[in-house]
């Protein structure tokens, strides 16, 4: 049964996030995000809002000792990533467990460039995912 305030696709059976957990966000490249990247993020927020009813962006939560495993499995399609902790992210954002674990949604109040840059800035610098595998065919235009 859906609880009051619960989002569609929210997994109420998942325990509240431990503040020591690592928060990972896949990145498409290693450069500083530009306006095109922000437009892509905004599109993800819009899709999330259509399905969840709130502006949201996706992250993965994992115990620090399992970070490498997540990078090699769910995140292996991302060439780069950023990371922070639940404790750091919770000072500014609300997190909800949604969709398949270890997915969580970070709720946003608006999706302007300033807010999206602030979201990304809440994470550390971009790092290379050593487990990234190149697609079997090139998709470059």
């Amino acid at each position, binding site marked *: 049964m859906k609880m009051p305030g619960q989002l569609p*696709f929210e997994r109420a059976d998942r325990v509240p996030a431990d503040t020591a957990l690592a928060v990972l*966000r*896949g990145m*498409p*490249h*290693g*450069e500083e995000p*530009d306006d*095109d*990247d922000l437009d*892509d993020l905004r*599109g*993800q927020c819009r*899709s*999330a809002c*259509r*399905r969840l009813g709130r502006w949201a962006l*996706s*992250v*993965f939560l994992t115990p620090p000792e399992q970070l490498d495993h997540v990078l090699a499995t*769910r995140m292996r*399609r*991302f*060439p780069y990533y950023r990371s922070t902790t639940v404790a750091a992210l919770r000072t500014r954002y609300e997190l909800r467990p*949604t*969709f*398949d674990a270890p*997915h969580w949604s970070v709720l946003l109040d608006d999706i302007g460039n300033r807010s999206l840059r602030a979201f990304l800035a809440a994470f550390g610098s971009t790092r290379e995912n050593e487990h990234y*595998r190149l*697609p*079997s*065919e090139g*998709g*470059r*235009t």
Partner: protein
Amino acid sequence: MTTSSPAMTRLDLPVDLHTFTDDLVWGYLDDARDPDQVVEGAELWVGSRRHAVRARVEQLTDEPSGTIVTLRLLD
């Protein structure tokens, strides 16, 4: 690292590659570059304009918010 903007990729359907339901990713049909191309069994480039991967369309489902395309990632 270079300072130039990364190249755009071919993108058939915007999909958040973090978000799985039962191991499938999803997007909205009306966001597709060519919705007529999005049929069950079709292989598409999905993700974002800067990073796309191959996926096969598994199902199209009408929901109140729009038609959801569920896909299995291939790479």
